[in-house]
């Protein structure tokens, strides 16, 4: 398993380089100046040139990319001229905040999705199944922006039970931290719960109709024991989709983070793109890509641990 992990990590290097090249090129073909807010309309051409020179914008693209890559390998993600801070410092803070939101959203979303999907799948065609299917469809269909604003309006504005956003870590105690998490988690986890429930239900239905289930029943296993086998066989696709969902959540949801003033990766990336803050954009995308790679690796390992059939395919 260890060799598998190392090999997968090594495979990820060309992927990350590819991602960074695409990102780098895209940011250089988009309209607007990469000097962003560093220049103004009262500067002479020489002053503008000097400002761009400080950012190294006059070097050829390959050289700029190479310089950036070498710095990355030395642990230097660069300096954000627009935000006046080291990119690593910005990313570290944003990443920590998003990780908290993502992990809680993912755990709740996946757990709820598995539970609902299991219930619906084992009661296929019944009213419980219909209710769960409606819920999961709603979870996928309701825009996060709309849901977030509604939740804010009800729980923050009207009932004044929960704060209207912001994240101050544990400075306000555990109660403050949990209260800050509830609305963004509720908004962010709904999609995950909806997708997971649908995948889980489909996998359960599929597994329940398999021949080996009849065999198990014929051998005299109780329904609970049969369901354990069903669960174990159905969980694999759920793990895959959950991994992807977690990756998305770790990337930071721009909508959720903006509405709830969550100082995470989504907000940071959005602001960086808006202000053409190239070092931050490159850093965030690289981190998000790396997170996806690690999550996929983790999913593979968990799948291999759960399902012996998978082990042989992961080489």
């Amino acid at each position, binding site marked *: 398993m260890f060799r598998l992990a190392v090999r997968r990590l090594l495979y990820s290097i060309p992927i990350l380089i590819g991602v960074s090249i695409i990102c780098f090129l895209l940011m250089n073909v988009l309209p607007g100046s990469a000097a962003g807010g560093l220049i103004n309309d009262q500067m002479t051409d020489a002053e503008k040139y000097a400002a761009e020179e400080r950012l190294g914008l006059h070097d050829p693209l390959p050289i700029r990319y190479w310089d950036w890559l070498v710095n990355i390998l030395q642990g230097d993600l660069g300096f954000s001229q627009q935000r006046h801070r080291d990119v690593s410092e910005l990313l570290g803070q944003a990443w920590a905040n998003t990780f908290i939101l993502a992990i809680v959203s993912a755990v709740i979303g996946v757990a709820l999705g598995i539970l609902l999907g299991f219930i619906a799948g084992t009661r296929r065609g019944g009213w419980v199944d219909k209710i769960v299917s409606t819920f999961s469809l709603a979870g996928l269909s309701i825009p996060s922006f709309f849901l977030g604003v509604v939740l804010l309006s009800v729980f923050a504005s009207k009932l004044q039970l929960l704060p209207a956003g912001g994240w101050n870590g544990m400075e306000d105690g555990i109660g403050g931290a949990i209260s800050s998490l509830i609305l963004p988690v509720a908004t962010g986890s709904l999609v995950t719960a909806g997708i997971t429930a649908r995948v889980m239900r489909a996998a359960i239905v599929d597994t329940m109709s398999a021949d080996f289930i009849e065999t198990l029943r014929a051998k005299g296993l109780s329904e609970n024991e049969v369901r354990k086998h069903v669960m174990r066989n159905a969980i694999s696709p759920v793990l895959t989709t959950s991994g992807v969902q977690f990756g998305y959540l770790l990337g930071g949801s721009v909508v959720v983070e903006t*509405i709830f003033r969550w100082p995470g990766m989504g907000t940071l990336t959005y602001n960086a793109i808006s202000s053409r803050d190239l070092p931050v954009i490159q850093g965030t995308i690289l981190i998000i890509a790396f997170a996806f790679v690690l999550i996929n690796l983790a999913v593979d390992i968990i799948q291999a641990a759960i399902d012996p059939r998978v082990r042989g395919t992961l080489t």
Partner: protein
Amino acid sequence: MKLSMRKAVTFVAGLLVAGMSLTACGASGSGGSSDPGVLKIAMTASDIPFTGTYPDNGYEGFRFVSNNLYDGLTRLNLDQDTELPTPQPSLAESVEPNEDGTVWTFKLREDVEFTDGTPFNADAVIFKLDTVKGDPDGKYFDADVASRGSAVFKYVKAGGYKKVDDYTVTVETTMPYGLLNYDALSWFIPSPTAVKAVIDGGGTWADFAKAPVGTGPFTLEELVPGDHALLVRNDDYWHGPAKLEEIYLYPAPEAATRLSMFESGEVNWADAPAPDAIQQLQDSGANVILAKYPHSISPRFNEFRAPFKDNVELRQALNYALDREATAAIINDAGFPASQYVYEGHPDFVPDNPGYGYDKAKAEQLLAEAGYPGGEGLKPLVFAYPQGGSGNMYPPEMMQSLQQQFADIGVDVELMPVEWNTLLTMGIEGLNSPQWQDIDILWASPAAGMLPTTYTTTVMCERVPGTPNAAGMCNPEIDELWDKGLATTDIEQTHEYFRQGLDIALDEADFLYWMHDLNLRVLAPEVKGFIPVLSWWTDFTLISVED
């Protein structure tokens, strides 16, 4: 399985109950708008403005951060709402130009200390000017402020400033210039001791900004990027301590979020909540403020090429085609129709020029005279506008209204939504640059006439020597008037020249005079002392939060 389901339902319900009960204490802990002396502000900015010696985030940065942490050599009289604020003594107790405005003498206050105890004096001013006009390779040179803040140091002659005595400084200008006292509003002076300690210790100006030291009425106590900043009162402020003890700044770029923060009591001041909430806020007893100030939406025609180049009739036709009252109604009257670049009552308002009102028949007639009867022969006009951003009012709603009104006279508009920063780049690179030359009309949201220095580059043929006006507007008559207005040290004369210049621009319809902003903001009833100043800035030392 029934048992399992029951367990599951019980588990989920338990989680919700536990969460809600924990939130009760959490919510009360994070709310607390009623704390006396504590002002909590939901800003439209997406992050805390930069705390160095020149802010970002436009005038929001000046209003909330720079003017609170630092002082300029002059300050606006923001303690009244009857006239446009003008520069008053601040760290300089007097500011005097020579006869032709080429040398300015600043007599400095002798009773001021930076918050680290360093005395403020002529050395501090020279140090500051050296950081932006001195040797670019110098140890303390601040390249960031020298470039971003270059507009306010533009007329300071490099090497032309000197210390006369410990409390007197003279500044030579690059040309006869009568508005240096306006530029000095934004010469934010840092403690030389603090700057040197940071930079000599291997740090940078960005490091200084993490623990800035100025002479302002507040100091920076805490800054969590993206979340909040806490400013605390400087009890020894030379102008007398502020009434507020603390100011919390929260970036909240989403209008619905700002509204919820206010309604939930997390903040007691929210800038620009959604205008459709005005009635709801008023009904709740909140202090909803709508007051005119120097801010307009005045898009610019691309006068580098057809159809707007040398076609005053077409520009006028579109100005007459705008039903500004209808647009104002769409945004719940959070703005009011603009007939000129500045609002009526502004020193640069042209009293005997009616400007433009809605007149469809006249618009159609002018359109025909322009060579496009019923819009025939006119390609769809590409109109670049932002989706949002500080000081832009409500672009999507306003643009849909405009598109319909232009269509009513046969003119099609192709909407081109862009990022706010991209729009700013268009204004810097100009509509004659290859990447932006297809744009016919460019959204503009100027601080119209807040300071006489603010619209120079908008109306003159060249922004700086060799760089044409970004929209191609060029009228030598206006240039001549503006040059005179900049050169005179008599501000009344300056306004007279500017009025004449804006009168010509109005007749020539160089702008799409559209809407004046009313600066919608909402304050909790316990916030006292707010003055709806005719400015983007606010004097927070006058504000209090009472029980």
